[in-house]
């Protein structure tokens, strides 16, 4: 098992700094230059503020900033999942339209802005690219088993959590980061990943588990 990176040291300046961190991690593609990124830098807190502004009323300026930041990233997500350029463009526009229309349903205590937008993009691509359905629970269903209240001192605000996760995923070893990308960005089941990388299924699962548990531990330690 690969534990080389288990004692990853927190790098000063990475936490809570700019939204675009290009160096060192395996997740930023194409050698992106932060200076060249004119697609709207946003901190998670600001992104959540903008969604709240949008929920409060038709705020064109807030939407424009969200659009500048998220639309190109959603498009890139959809491209990797097999959409042609034109389809990815159209679907990314659809996703942003949904963001505008559903902003009132966004709850910053539950999810960071990028998580919320990720779930919209994910559902859109299952529907439009994979042509399948993804049944979901209904949060207002009385049959749902309630969650225990998290004590206030253990709550990490969703935005803060997102910032920590951002910097953590960028410091994952490439081998683990690659598996995450294949799973989240390429619609590949664990068994397909195993076939393509010529690895035993158990190895794929244990590496993914390792990557995810590192991220989780990091969040819990911070909580």
């Amino acid at each position, binding site marked *: 098992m690969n534990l080389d990176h288990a004692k990853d040291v927190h790098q000063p300046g990475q936490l809570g700094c700019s939204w675009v*961190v290009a160096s060192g*991690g395996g997740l*930023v*593609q*194409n050698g992106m230059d932060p200076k060249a*990124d004119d*697609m709207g830098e946003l901190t998670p807190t600001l992104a959540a503020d903008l969604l709240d502004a949008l929920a409060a009323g038709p705020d064109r300026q807030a*939407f424009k900033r969200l*659009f500048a930041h998220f639309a*190109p*990233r959603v498009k*890139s997500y959809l*491209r990797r999942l097999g959409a042609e350029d034109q389809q*990815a*463009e159209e679907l990314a*526009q659809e996703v942003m*339209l949904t963001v*505008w229309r559903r902003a009132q*349903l966004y709850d910053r205590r*539950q999810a*960071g802005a*990028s*998580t*919320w*937008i*990720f779930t*919209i*993009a*994910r*559902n*859109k691509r*299952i*529907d439009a690219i994979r042509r*399948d*359905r*993804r*049944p*979901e*629970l*209904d949060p207002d*269903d009385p*049959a*749902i*088993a*309630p*969650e225990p209240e998290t004590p206030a001192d253990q709550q990490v605000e*969703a935005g803060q959590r*997102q910032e920590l*996760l*951002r910097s953590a*995923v960028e410091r994952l070893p490439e081998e683990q980061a690659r598996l995450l*990308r294949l*799973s*989240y960005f390429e*619609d*590949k089941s*664990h068994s397909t990943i195993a076939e393509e990388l010529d690895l035993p299924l158990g190895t794929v*699962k244990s590496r*993914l*588990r390792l990557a995810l548990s590192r991220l989780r531990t990091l969040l819990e330690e911070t909580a």
Partner: protein
Amino acid sequence: MAEHLAPDDLLQEYAAGNLSEPLSLLVATHIALKPESRQTVRFYEDVGGALLAASAPEPMADDAFDSVMARIEAGTPVVPDGGTAAAPVDDAARTRAALPEGVRIAADVPTPLRDYLARVGETASWRQRGGSVAELDLLPDYPGYKTRLLRITAGSRIPQHTHDGAEYTLVLEGSFTDSTGRYARGDVSVADDDVTHQPVAGQECDCICLAVTDAPLKMTGPFGRILNYFVDM
């Protein structure tokens, strides 16, 4: 008593959006009943959000923003998109409506399974499978999967069987016990291709489960061979 939560890799594939409809149905129903798994899914969605935020942007068309604004201003109707993390509930009463008699199982069935039962309930009927087990197909036309409700008579044993693929079983009511433990409401059992198991339903009441298999069951006992004949038909 130990809970049997769905394995993390299944929850992660659900969060990433990589599960088929039958398995998504099973996971979504499981997380409605098990808050801990719901929180796990939320964490895996956070990872998806972090990956999205960290991904390299791909430039949009020059007029993209303006054309979305034009659609907003023109009030283009929303294209149904399969819901979001917090899908709007336009009709809360719908989920509480009584289910058709054939699929009325005593335990409170959470959405989304409830919607599927309501849909098949009018026409589907339970098929008796060898005395102690009855089954009802939920997604008979979905390729590569069998998605069924199983009703196992209280206290009875279901025929010994192995699997070509994996079998995922979510308990909705009652319980069953096999060599890996006791499974009660909300619990998920995963049996791989090399597991031969022989679950026994609890005495308290009939055990009702949602079972998803990604390949047909193979019964191994003498009784099972007869069942296989029907399964393969």
